[in-house]
């Protein structure tokens, strides 16, 4: 067990996790998930918000089992390796708001950092603008970190407090099993489903769940984080996490080539628009919010699985943010940005700057 524990902290460890995620993300698409969206934490949390009726965008409603798997896989790993540490209290309301605006930014681009990489690995040139925006946003965040920005210390808490998000995810899984999708029906008792659009495209439940559990387990062990990859590179010239991220992109690219999912170009890419400036701008906002909150959306799920209640609050912020995005016309569609998407990005950037400038200790 100690050997295995050490392995994941090594370069080879993070590389194997990146490879696993890259291959299986690409395969999930092959098995039914939407184009270049084998895994997208932002999109999938948005689909969850739709499934429970937080928004009523008919094409993006599905209680994605991958997200449930991420949290529970991390929970299992944390218990097996004695790393479950229930903790809360590092400015939860600020983390909630960062989650809201991270989601708003990600949905202007149409993807989280994982999907930005997967879109790139699938040939979608628009993803380049998103990735540049992500790096730009993280760079701004590192300036704040360097000047003393932090959200304060956490406190140890009850074990059951650390179980809150895992329990919510178990509840979601139970709902998914009691109210399964009915062919061509937009509702199954209380749960909403999509009959067309990205929300209707998904791999079989059991496969999604198992891959989610596997990734959750491995990512908890290896601390895989897309935001941390760039942050550590900018802040410390430390490339450990980055090697995992680069491996993910390379393996997703290779798998896409093999299964015929690589289609280079800018126009008509799946679930994407071509407005370069706002692909960039949306991800500046998301990248900055992730950096101020200490993790990409995937990492926040894994942290929540190992007992971090503040990360759990960030996740809930993202789900609420998805509801706002679609209810207020902030989210983009393949036609371009939503009617109020640009205004929301500007407001979000102002809020993040306010947080970054005013929450510094030195």
């Amino acid at each position: 067990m100690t050997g295995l524990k050490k392995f994941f902290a090594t370069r080879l460890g993070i590389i194997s996790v990146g490879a696993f995620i890259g291959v299986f993300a690409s395969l999930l698409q092959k098995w039914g998930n939407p184009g270049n969206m084998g895994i997208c934490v932002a999109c999938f949390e948005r689909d969850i918000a739709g499934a429970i009726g937080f928004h009523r965008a008919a094409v993006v409603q599905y209680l994605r089992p991958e997200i449930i798997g991420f949290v529970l896989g991390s929970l299992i790993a944390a218990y097996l390796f004695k790393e479950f540490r229930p903790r809360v209290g590092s400015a939860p309301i600020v983390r909630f708001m960062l989650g809201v605006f991270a989601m708003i930014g990600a949905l202007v681009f149409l993807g989280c950092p994982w999907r930005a990489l997967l879109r790139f690995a699938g040939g979608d040139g628009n993803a380049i603008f998103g990735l540049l925006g992500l790096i730009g946003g993280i760079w701004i965040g590192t300036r704040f970190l360097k000047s003393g920005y932090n959200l304060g210390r956490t406190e140890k808490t009850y074990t059951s407090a650390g179980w809150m998000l895992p329990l919510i995810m178990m509840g979601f899984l139970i709902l998914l099993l009691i109210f399964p999708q009915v062919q061509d029906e937009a509702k199954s008792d209380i749960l909403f489903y999509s009959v067309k659009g990205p929300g209707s495209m998904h791999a079989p439940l059991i496969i999604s769940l198992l891959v989610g559990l596997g990734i959750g387990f491995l990512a908890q062990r290896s601390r895989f984080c897309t935001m941390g990859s760039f942050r550590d590179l900018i802040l410390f010239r430390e490339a450990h996490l980055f090697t995992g991220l680069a491996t993910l992109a390379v393996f997703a690219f290779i798998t896409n080539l093999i299964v015929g999912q690589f289609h280079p170009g800018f126009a008509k890419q799946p679930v994407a628009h071509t407005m370069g400036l706002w692909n960039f701008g949306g991800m500046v906002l998301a990248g900055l919010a992730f950096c101020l909150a200490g993790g990409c959306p995937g990492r926040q799920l894994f942290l929540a699985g190992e007992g971090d209640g503040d990360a759990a609050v960030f996740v809930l912020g993202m789900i609420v943010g998805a509801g706002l995005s679609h209810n207020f016309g902030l989210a983009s569609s393949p036609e371009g940005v939503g009617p109020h998407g640009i205004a929301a990005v500007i407001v979000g950037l102002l809020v993040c700057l306010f947080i970054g400038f005013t929450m510094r200790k030195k």
Partner: protein
Amino acid sequence: MTTTVDARGFSCPQPVLMTLDGIKKADSGEMVILVDTDTSKENVSRAARSQGWQVKDVIEEGGGYRVTISKEQ
């Protein structure tokens, strides 16, 4: 003299930033960093090594870790 950096309750990158701050000030000698997650323990150790410091000792303490790093003059 051994300096102690208390990074308990902070999540990354704060413990690493605090360690690097300490390293900048101390130049050499011995330093103790208190952290409370395995992630912080790994990141702090990795950062210290990248600065030419050695990780002398990691002890479990109070639900966290006491990481001792050192560098000869």
